[in-house]
Each structure stands twice: as structure tokens, then as C-alpha cells.
């Protein structure tokens, strides 16, 4: 039993980390009332930047390369997400349409520049990805240490810590209260002197930063290179985690962990006696089916922020 846990849990954490990070971005954006279908594109952007930066600077930066790569991916993706903010907040564009355009644009730019710079459809493998480590002290705890803290990516714990940070920011600070107010009832928030547009810009940019972080973590732990098929659906799965987690940072984290668990089972399920006979397809579609069931209210009702998806136009009722 412990052996099974030892193989399942680190893999689950490994697959969850990018989902958790991106889903947190989704929570910020949607809590402020901006639907973000563009999470997929933000992850693509993050993955592309993370890989390119890593390939370019690995000689100079040595062991620090992956960390600086994800930072750069985070910052540039945040800037990239401003396009979504401008279109959906200032220009009152349909947020869903703008998100779809973000997805197309990110993939287009990523693959275009890859071909331009590397002369082929995919980059080389990076020299400096993240490696698994044993966490000092914690990994010496009997039983638990070997399940949770040995052979693990630090990024997984970074993601979980950030989820708690996001929860604190959203629920325990004035900034978080304002952000949620803007997403529930922008007119009331506006009347109270909160700058609705500014809050929504900040939220979308945060989602860009976290999406970029998620994408680059995916690229530097799971994929190791960038091509048109590096990010296929992880962004949408993160969106599913946002909803399945009922737009709550810790809920989204739980959902992302669960989806990562389902993914890890679909990868290593064949070595577990109980799951050998379950066709892989059921594990693959599980996150999506569960999200639909959650939305339909079969697993506790999931209600979106009230003003989610509606552009705020001053003076309109």
C-alpha cells in the first residue's frame, strides 16, 4: 500500500502543480468578473517563454536557470494578458471571444517565433529543467516523509503555498474584498469609490502572471521543450478546476490536485492492481465529466460570481 502511495502521490503532485497555479489565475480573473477562457493561451505563452529563456541563458545562469525562467515567463505573460484586459474591460468586447482570440494568438506567436528562431517546429530539450529533490528534514519523517517529501518537485509545494497566499489575499485583505465586490456587483462597488476598471485590470494581469507561471512550470517539469502540442488542454482543465472548486482558491487547489491525481492514475494506473481493468479513457474524461456534474448541481451547487462575464459600463443599469 505504501509503495502504491509512493508512486501515486508524487506523480499526482507533479501533474497538479501547473494546474493549481493556472487555476489560481483563473480564480482572480473570474472573481473580478472577467471570464478567462484564455488561460490555455496564457499557459502556452508561459511554456514558450520558459523554454526559450532556459535554452538561451542556461550557460550563463547555471542552476538558477529554471527559477529565473519561470519568473520571466510570469512577467511577460502578465504583460501579454493586458491584451485580454484591454479588449474585455476597456473595449467591452465579449470576454469569451477575446479569450478564444488570446488562445489562438498565443499559440500562433509561440510557434511562429519558434520556427523563426530555431528553424523547426519544436525547440530542443532544455538543459536545465527542474529536478526532483528530497526536502530536507521533512523527508526523514517515517512513512509520510517517503510519500510526500521524497523525489518531489519543489514547484508542487510552491503551487500549494501560493494557493494559501491567494486565499489570504482574496479573503483577508481589503484588496481581496474589493476584487470580489467588483465581480459580484460592480455598480455597488463603483458607488463605494472602488475603481472597477482598475481592479479588473489587476485581476486579469494576475491571471496572466499565474497562467504564465503554470505554463512554464509545466514546460520545465513535464514537457522539457516547446512545440504546438506542448500545452493541449491543460488551460481548459485549469478552468474546469476553477469551476469545480467553486471559484475559491483552496477549492480550485483541491480540484486541481484531484485532476492531477486522475491524470497520474491514467499514466501509472496499469501498475496498480485495482485500476488495471479500468479503461484509461474514464480517467482521462473524469475531470470534465465531474465539472459538468458540479455545474449541474449534482455535487453541490457551483454558482459563478454574479457579474462574471459582463462588461461594466458606467451609468447603465
Amino acid at each position, binding site marked *: 500500500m505504501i509503495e502504491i502511495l509512493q508512486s501515486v502521490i508524487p506523480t499526482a503532485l507533479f501533474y497538479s502543480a501547473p494546474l493549481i497555479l493556472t487555476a489560481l489565475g483563473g480564480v482572480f480573473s473570474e472573481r473580478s468578473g472577467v471570464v478567462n477562457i484564455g488561460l490555455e493561451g496564457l499557459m502556452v505563452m508561459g511554456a514558450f517563454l520558459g523554454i526559450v529563456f532556459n535554452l538561451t541563458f542556461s550557460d550563463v545562469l547555471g542552476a538558477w536557470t529554471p527559477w529565473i525562467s519561470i519568473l520571466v515567463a510570469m512577467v511577460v505573460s502578465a504583460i501579454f494578458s493586458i491584451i485580454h484586459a484591454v479588449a474585455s474591460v476597456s473595449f467591452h*468586447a465579449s470576454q469569451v471571444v477575446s479569450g478564444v482570440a488570446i488562445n*489562438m*494568438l498565443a499559440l*500562433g506567436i509561440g510557434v*511562429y517565433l519558434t520556427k*523563426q528562431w530555431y528553424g523547426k517546429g519544436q525547440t530542443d530539450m532544455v538543459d536545465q529543467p527542474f529536478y526532483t529533490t528530497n526536502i530536507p528534514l521533512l523527508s526523514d519523517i517515517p512513512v509520510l516523509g517517503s510519500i510526500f517529501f521524497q523525489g518531489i518537485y519543489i514547484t508542487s509545494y510552491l503551487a500549494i503555498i501560493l494557493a494559501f497566499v491567494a486565499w489570504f489575499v482574496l479573503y483577508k485583505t481589503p484588496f481581496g474584498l474589493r476584487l470580489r465586490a467588483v465581480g459580484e456587483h460592480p455598480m455597488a462597488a463603483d458607488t463605494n469609490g472602488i475603481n472597477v476598471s482598475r481592479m479588473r485590470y489587476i485581476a486579469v494581469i494576475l491571471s496572466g502572471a499565474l497562467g504564465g507561471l503554470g505554463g512554464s512550470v509545466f514546460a520545465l517539469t513535464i514537457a522539457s521543450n516547446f512545440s504546438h502540442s506542448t500545452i493541449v488542454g491543460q488551460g481548459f482543465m485549469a478552468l474546469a478546476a476553477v469551476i469545480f472548486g467553486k471559484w475559491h482558491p483552496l477549492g480550485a487547489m483541491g480540484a486541481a490536485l484531484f485532476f492531477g491525481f486522475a491524470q497520474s492514475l491514467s499514466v501509472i494506473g496499469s501498475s496498480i492492481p485495482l485500476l488495471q481493468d479500468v479503461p484509461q479513457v474514464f480517467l482521462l*474524461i473524469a475531470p470534465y465529466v465531474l465539472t459538468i456534474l458540479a455545474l449541474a448541481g449534482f455535487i453541490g451547487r457551483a454558482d459563478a460570481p454574479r457579474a462574471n462575464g459582463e462588461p461594466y459600463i458606467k451609468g447603465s443599469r
Partner: protein
Amino acid sequence: MPSNRLFTLLVPVVSVVMGLIAGAIIMHISGFNPIDGYSALWTGAFGDAYTIGETIRRSAPYILTGLSIAFAFRTGLFNIGAEGQVLVGWLAAVWVGLTIDAPMYIHLPLAILAAAVAGGLWAFVPGILKAKLGVHEVIVTIMMNYIALFTTNEIIRKVLTSGQTTTDTIAGSASLASEWMQSITFYSRVHYGILIALFAAAIMWFIIQRTTIGYELKSVGFNQHASRYAGMNVSKNIILSMVIAGMFAGLAGAMEGLGTYGNMSVTAGFSNLGFDGIAVALLGANTAIGVVFAAFLFGALKEGAGEMPTGAGIPTELVDIIIALIIFFVASSYIIRWVIVRFKKEGK
């Protein structure tokens, strides 16, 4: 304020022009000659009979996915799930094409019908969830896309083949391939599907403009409460709209399964027909005729893009960037409107 009719025409035209200009700027910045680039694009799309045939072939499914999204949009629904509906339609068409043995006049219509029904059923789920439980159709259709992707892959591997990644080619009696059309286009893969697509556009126009069903669907799209007050069954109309939209998208799958490829392969990602269909519908202002024009434009852009690497050394993805920018411009028509109104005022 310019008249609405003029405006609905002006926004897409301005957006396309701005998109192409942006594309030229990107080419210039990355060290290519934009004129070479666009002339390669033109040659790739309309250079000879073969490429024209391929452009037409590529446009047919775009027309259908565009119609699918436009039709749902008329009822105020966003069918982002055309992607999944295409896949299940494709699978159903190939399935019928492989397993049934019948003369062409039965087999072909049956395969096409199967695609439409499969697409319709796939769209029925988000439709009924929206109508009965108020669940937002955007999320449900996205989730349905992935369920379709993994399920169709599994069926190809386990049911239609034994562990293979591509099905056998469908029987000739279920094929849309047209020797006549191929012979006049130097044996491109153009097929009769384009006629089905144009016919579907005519049907959409007829339903929306000339029937009480279409009137009710539009009415629900404008104002659900008023429609309910007027005695219309809002739930029924929402479900009906989604199902018809799904049928159009399913037919797009039939174009690929019965026409272009004649089989179906396991894929890691989507065909993007459904996502591009959103762009088509948006650019076509959600009208049947607009969708046809927009589909030909995107079909030509996508087909022509194939010539850009060999003709001018430019990666094909440039066209994806251009299309994404066109969507942004159309979606932000508020700002185009604002600019035009501003200029009008200053002119006076």
C-alpha cells in the same frame, strides 16, 4: 451614428484590413518582405486550379462550423463546443461508412445523417442543462469537447480498429469524393461537401428569416423574459437551437470523414475547425451569407498559408496570428464604432 446596416458591413471589412496590415508589420519586423509574403499567400490560395480546389475543400467545413456558432448565437447561446461536435460527427460518419453495406443513394445520405444526428445529440447535453438548470453553455461545451476528444480516440482504437491509430478507408458508396470536381482541379481533394455546406447556409437563412421557429429562436435571443411573456417556450427553443447548431457542426465532421480524408485518426489535439468557426461566425456577423464569405476568406488564408514557408520563408503560423487579431478587432467593434462616431462629429 452611421446606419446599422452600413456598420455591420464596415466592422468586418475594417477588421480584416487592420488584421492584414498587422500581419504585414509582423512580417516586416521579423525581417521578411510583406509583399513577397502576401503574394505567396495569394499563390497558395488561388495560384492554380489545384489550389483553388483545395481552398474550396478547406472552406466547406468552415462554412458549417461557422453556421453552427452563428445559429446558436442568434438564440443568445455561445456554442464553443463545435469542436467536439465536429469530432463526434466525423466519427459517426466514418462508422456508418465502414460498417454498413448499401447502395450509394442510401449509404451516403445515411452517413451524412448520422454525422448530423451525432453532432445534434452532443449539443443536446449543454442545451438541456442550460434550459432546465441554467448552467452556462460555454463551460459545458468546452468540457464536452474534451470528452469527445478522448472518447472518439478510444472508440477508434478499441472499437473501429484493434489498437490502430487510423481507421480503414470508408466504402466508396459513402464517399463524397467527386471525380468530376477533382479532374477539373488537377486532382485536389475537393469534394461534393461544398454543395452540402452551401445548402446548409441556405437552410439556416430560411429557418431564421422565413419560419416561425426562426422567429421564436431570434426572439429568445433578444429577450427571454419578453418571449416567455409572449407565450413562447423558452426552454424548448434553447434546446432546439443548440441541437440544430450541433447538427451543422456534425456535418462539418462529415466533410472531413466522408470527403477530405475518408477515414479518422487518433489525435492528440483538436482540428481547430470549431474554434476557427467562432472567428468565421463573428466576422460573418452571425448571418448565413456573411458566414459563407467569411469561411471562404479564412479557407483561403489557411490554404494560402501553406505556400508561405516555401514561397517566402515565412512560418504558416503568421496566418493564425492574423486571424486572432481579426477576432480581436471584430470583438472590440465598440472602439471602431467609437472612432467612427468621433470622426463624424469632427467632420461636421
